[in-house]
C-alpha cells in the first residue's frame, strides 16, 4: 500500500529550545510510525537556513510529500522554497517562525512572542510599582527576538520602568553569564533582569548569585524550560513567574497534520498557543521532567 509521507523539517539542536523541538519531533515520529502503518513521518534537521532550503529540495526531489511540517530557520529565506513544495501538491504546516506569505500555509501552529514579552513586562510593571531599572538580554538577530523585545517594550510603555541596557547574548547561557557580570559591573542599581529565553536566564542567575548583589528583585526568562518551571513551582523569589513557549508545539503540529491526512478531519487554519503567565498556581501543568527542555 502507498504510505503517506509526512516530512518534518526543523532546525538542528543548536540550543536548548531547538533541542526540545528535535526531541518532540522525534517522539511524535516514533509514536505515529508505530500507530499508523499507513503513515511515514520523516524528521530532518538542518543547521542553517541555507541547509534547510537544501533539505526541502532533497526531501521533495526523491518522493512525493503528502505533507510538510516545517519550523523555518528564518522567514524570508524559506518562503519561496516552501512555496515550491506547496506547488507540488503538498499540505503545508508551518510552526513557530512564520513565513512571509501566510497564504502558503494550510496550518499554522505558533507561540505568541509578543505576549511572551508583554506578559513579562506587565508582571514587572505591576510588581515593581511601575518604577525601576531594568536590563535586558536578547537572543540573536531574528524576527522572533524582535517581537519579544517589542512586546516587552510595549508592555512597559507608560510606566517609569527604564531599560538601562539591551544587548545580544545569542540565546546562550555562557554569553548570558558574561553579559550579566558586565551589566552588574556597569550598573550599581538594577531592579530586574529579563532574558528573553531560559537558556540565557540560567547564565544570568549564576552571575547574580556569584555577585551577591541584593538589590535585584526579579530575574525572568521565557520559554518554559523545565528547570525554570521547577523554580516557579518551588516558589523561587527571584524567578516567581515564567512564560511558556513550549517546543512541544512541533508535536502538536505533527499530530494535527497527520490527523488531517488520515483522520478524515480536515484541519486548517492557525493555532496560536497562548503565552500566559505561569505562576506557582498553574506551574504543574507546564512541568515535563522527562523532556530534555
Amino acid at each position, binding site marked *: 500500500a502507498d504510505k503517506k509521507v509526512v516530512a518534518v523539517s526543523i532546525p*538542528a*539542536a543548536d540550543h536548548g529550545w531547538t533541542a526540545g523541538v*528535535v526531541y518532540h519531533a*522525534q517522539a511524535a515520529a516514533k509514536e505515529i510510525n508505530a500507530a499508523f502503518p499507513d503513515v511515514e513521518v*520523516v*524528521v*530532518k*534537521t538542518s*543547521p*542553517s*537556513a*541555507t*541547509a534547510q*532550503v*537544501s*533539505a526541502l*529540495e*532533497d*526531501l521533495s*526531489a*526523491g*518522493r512525493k510529500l503528502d505533507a510538510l511540517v516545517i519550523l523555518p*530557520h*528564518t*522567514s*524570508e*529565506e*524559506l*518562503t*519561496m*522554497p516552501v512555496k515550491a513544495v506547496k506547488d507540488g501538491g503538498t499540505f503545508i504546516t508551518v510552526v513557530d517562525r512564520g513565513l*512571509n506569505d501566510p497564504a502558503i500555509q494550510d496550518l499554522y501552529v505558533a507561540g505568541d512572542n509578543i505576549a511572551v514579552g508583554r506578559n513579562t513586562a506587565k508582571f514587572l510593571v505591576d510588581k515593581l510599582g511601575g518604577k525601576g531599572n531594568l536590563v535586558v538580554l536578547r537572543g*540573536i*538577530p*531574528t*524576527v522572533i*527576538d*524582535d517581537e519579544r523585545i517589542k512586546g516587552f517594550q510595549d508592555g512597559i510603555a507608560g510606566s517609569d520602568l527604564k531599560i538601562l541596557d539591551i544587548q545580544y547574548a545569542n540565546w546562550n547561557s555562557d554569553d548570558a553569564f558574561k553579559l550579566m557580570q558586565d551589566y552588574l559591573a556597569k550598573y550599581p542599581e538594577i531592579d530586574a533582569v529579563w532574558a528573553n529565553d531560559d537558556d540565557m536566564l540560567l547564565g544570568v542567575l549564576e552571575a547574580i548569585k556569584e555577585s551577591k548583589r541584593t538589590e535585584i528583585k526579579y530575574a525572568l526568562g521565557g520559554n518554559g524550560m523545565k528547570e525554570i518551571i521547577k523554580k516557579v513551582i518551588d516558589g523561587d523569589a527571584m524567578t516567581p513567574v515564567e512564560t511558556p513557549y513550549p517546543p512541544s508545539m512541533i508535536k502538536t503540529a505533527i499530530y494535527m497534520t497527520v490527523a488531517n491526512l488520515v483522520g478524515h478531519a480536515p484541519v486548517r487554519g492557525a493555532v496560536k498557543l497562548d503565552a500566559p503567565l505561569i505562576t506557582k498556581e498553574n506551574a504543574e501543568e507546564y512541568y515535563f521532567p522527562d523532556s530534555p527542555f
Partner: protein
Amino acid sequence: MSVVSQPARLGRERDFSFNWADAGPFLALLALLVIGFLVNPDFLSPTNLSNVITRSAFIAIIAVGATFVISSGGLDLSVGSMAAFITGITIMFMNMMAPSMGTWSIPAGMGIALLAGIACGLVNGIIVTVGKIEPFIATLGTMGIFRALITYMSDGGTIPIDRSLREAYRPVYFGTVAGIPLPIIISLAVAAIASFVLYKTKYGRKCAAAGANEDVARYSGISIVRTRTIAYVIQGACVAIAAICYVPRLGAATPTTGVLWELQVITAVVIGGTALRGGKGHIWGTVAGAVILELIANLMVLSDFVSEYLVAAVQGVIIIIAMLIQRFSK
C-alpha cells in the same frame, strides 16, 4: 675548450599529462557517488544531482576565489559575512532603484554587488599585506565587521528583496540553459576563467610563487603586497558573484546569511588539493571539493540510518575519509 657531447636530453615536456595528485578529489567524489547510490538509489537521480550541484555553486564560486588567496599564502575567514553584507547592500540598492528603474535595477544592483565585493576584498588585502597582520586574525576582524554591518543595516531583522523584482530575478538561480541550471553554468564559467588566470597568466604564476616562497618571489621582482592584495580582490569579486546568484534563492539578506561558509569554503579548497600553507592552487579540485561537501550533506538527508543528533559526526567522518582517499591516491 673542446666540445664534448652532452648526456642525452630527455624528451620535450609534454603539455598535457595526467596527474594523479590532481585526480584525488575526483576519486573521492566518485567514491561518494557510489556510496550514495548504494545508500539510496534516488541519490543519482538527475533531479537530485542537479539540485545538489546547483546548490554547491555558491560555495564553489567563493572557494574558487579562496583558492587564489590560499595559493598566494593568505587566508580569508570573512567570506561568509562578506557574502551577507554584499547581499544586503545589493538588495537595498535594488529595492531603492526599483521604483525608478524597474527591473533594470537588477543588473545595476549586480554591478554594485561586484563593486562592493572588490572593495571588501581590497580592505582585507590591504590589512593583511600593508598592515602585515596574520591573515587569520585580520580576516577574523573583518568577519566581525561585515557581520555587524549587515546586522546594523537590517536592524537585526531581514532585508527582503522587493516583490516587484522577485519574478524577474528568479531565473538567475532557477533558470536553465540547455537544461543546465544557471548557477552551474556560472560556477563553471567562474572556474574556467579562474583556471585560465591561475595557470595561464603572469598573475597566476606570481600568486603561486608568493605562496610557495615569499623570498624567492620578492627576489624575482614580484610584489608580494600587490599579488596578495589582488588575490583578496579576486576573492571579493567571487563572493559578489556568489551573492548575486544567492539573492533569488533566498530572497533576503539576514544577519545569519552565510554563517560558517568560511569553514566550508576552506574545506572545499583543501579537499580539492590546495595546501593551506600556500603554493600551487587547484581550481577544479576546489570545485570538486565544494560538490563533495554538498553531496555529503545531501546524503545525510537522503539516508535514514543516522540519528539526527549524529549527522555532524557522520559528516566529520566522511570528510576525514575523503581526505584519506585523496591522500591515498597520491
